[in-house]
């Protein structure tokens, strides 16, 4: 095992303009927000983002002009309503939004994780989402060769980079995610490169005490960066809860056309005038 501890800057360098990215967590829970802010600071362009139910992570990158395409099952701010930048830029035609439905997106990750070109799923038949997915070539109706049952083949989704925020890892990239995993393990196995930001780097000895708690072994992980509060304002279980007040502040900034000031204050951290 060799150390994969890297600087934040180096890890962000693994993301090229135009890359296909997915993030760990779901809505306001354990999204890799500080890494997302770093991508904004580095002025990344033309990213394609894919995930089943993201929220502020995607909307922030969209609002900062880093995104060309998004594919999601749902992109909203839970009970707070619509994702403001996603809605605005999609309606203006400034981003391409391709809705995918949660199960096909998860199945696409699972296919890539299993080294398969596609994976069949049930459901979907009769939905206009299947029609548009067949047009873009992400889903296709097939028949099971044994029973003749109609199913939907979902094309494998292999992100260039999966970025996951976790609670702990050792320097070699053995990662311990505490609590709900969402599809983080599947996404990591599906992606070409995996960047994990963690609340704290722990010793390899600590990891060896409880191997059943290791959710990603080192050979799947390309970079580990210690980023305390790396999910903020989303939650990181056992460390901090979601800051719902901050999320409402974000929404107000986006609604009042003061989003640039929000970016200055919380992303670029420039002094406001």
């Amino acid at each position, binding site marked *: 095992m060799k150390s994969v501890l890297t600087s934040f800057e180096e890890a962000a360098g693994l993301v090229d303009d135009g890359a296909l990215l997915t993030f760990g967590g779901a809505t306001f829970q354990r999204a890799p927000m500080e890494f997302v802010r770093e991508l904004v600071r580095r002025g990344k362009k033309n990213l394609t983002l894919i995930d089943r139910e993201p929220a502020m992570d995607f909307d922030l990158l969209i609002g900062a002009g880093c995104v060309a395409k998004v594919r999601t099952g749902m992109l909203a701010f839970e009970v707070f309503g619509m994702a403001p930048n996603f*809605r605005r830029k999609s309606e203006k035609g400034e981003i391409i939004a391709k809705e995918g439905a949660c199960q096909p997106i998860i199945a696409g990750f699972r296919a890539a994780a299993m080294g398969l070109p596609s994976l069949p799923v049930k459901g979907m*038949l009769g939905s*206009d989402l299947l029609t548009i997915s067949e047009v873009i070539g992400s889903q296709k109706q097939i028949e099971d060769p044994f029973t003749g049952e109609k199913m939907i083949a979902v094309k494998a989704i292999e992100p260039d980079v999966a970025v996951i925020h976790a609670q702990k890892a050792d320097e070699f990239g053995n990662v311990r995610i505490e*609590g*709900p995993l969402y599809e983080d393990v599947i996404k990591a196995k599906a992606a070409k490169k995996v960047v994990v930001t963690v609340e704290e780097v722990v010793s390899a000895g600590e990891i060896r005490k409880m191997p059943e708690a290791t959710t990603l072994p080192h050979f799947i992980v390309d970079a580990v960066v210690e980023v305390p509060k790396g999910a903020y304002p989303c939650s990181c279980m056992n460390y901090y809860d979601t800051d719902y007040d901050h999320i409402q502040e974000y929404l107000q900034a986006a609604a009042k056309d003061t989003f640039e000031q929000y970016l200055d204050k919380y992303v670029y951290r420039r002094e406001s005038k």
Partner: protein
Amino acid sequence: MTDKIATPDLMVYAMASEIENFNTVLHGVSSPLPVLGMSVARRTHAPDMAYISGAEGVDPEIDRIYPSSFDPRLNRNAVAYFGLHEAFDLAQRGELDVMFLGAAQIDRFGNTNLSVIGKIENPKVQLPGGAASAFLMPITPKVVIWATRHTYRVFVEAVDFVTGQGYNNRSEACKKNKIVVVSNLGVMNFENPGRTMQIQSVHPGHTVDEIKENTGFDILVAPDVGETPVPDQDIVDLIDRIDPDGVRQSEFH
């Protein structure tokens, strides 16, 4: 007494009533009413249900809800974690009995739209997306749609985009699966030969005519239409205790 029950609490109770004991039930994102409904069901008539949280906990002891239905605090004292992909596996096996889904538009056949208002190529309004709707709607034995604004703009003649499949967009095999709609005015289902929407019960303080006026198509009335059952004070107190901040009001603004 009945006129004192708030609409969200009536809806929570109506949604809880759709769960039977020993059912396996899942809720998704942005779902304060389903979380409360599942919590009420488990503490009243369905103590043996399998409760799968969108936050991934199994049978959690919910002591309060939050603006996110994935908040890990919703997994308090859970017996296990069960990921969404595992819950979807269960659904494909036909072993997920009940799911709760939303809708920005719903039509007479039960098609739902959560994708776009206007055309998909050039949306007038970009909606959030259907999440699991297109996957779960046809294959789940019972899907409960909740709609907090029963108006002709939501209950439309034809949806702009079919996100979730109604009865005219399903295979014969999937037509046996039920859709129940719980709105702020009443409870609707599709239990008639033509499989079109009918009023099954009306919430106290509302009328069949009011529902008809606020529906954008000719809605049928079930022969045994009645009044929606009202939760007793213990259940109302339970809902208040779990949601002291009124998160459940958020969809009614």
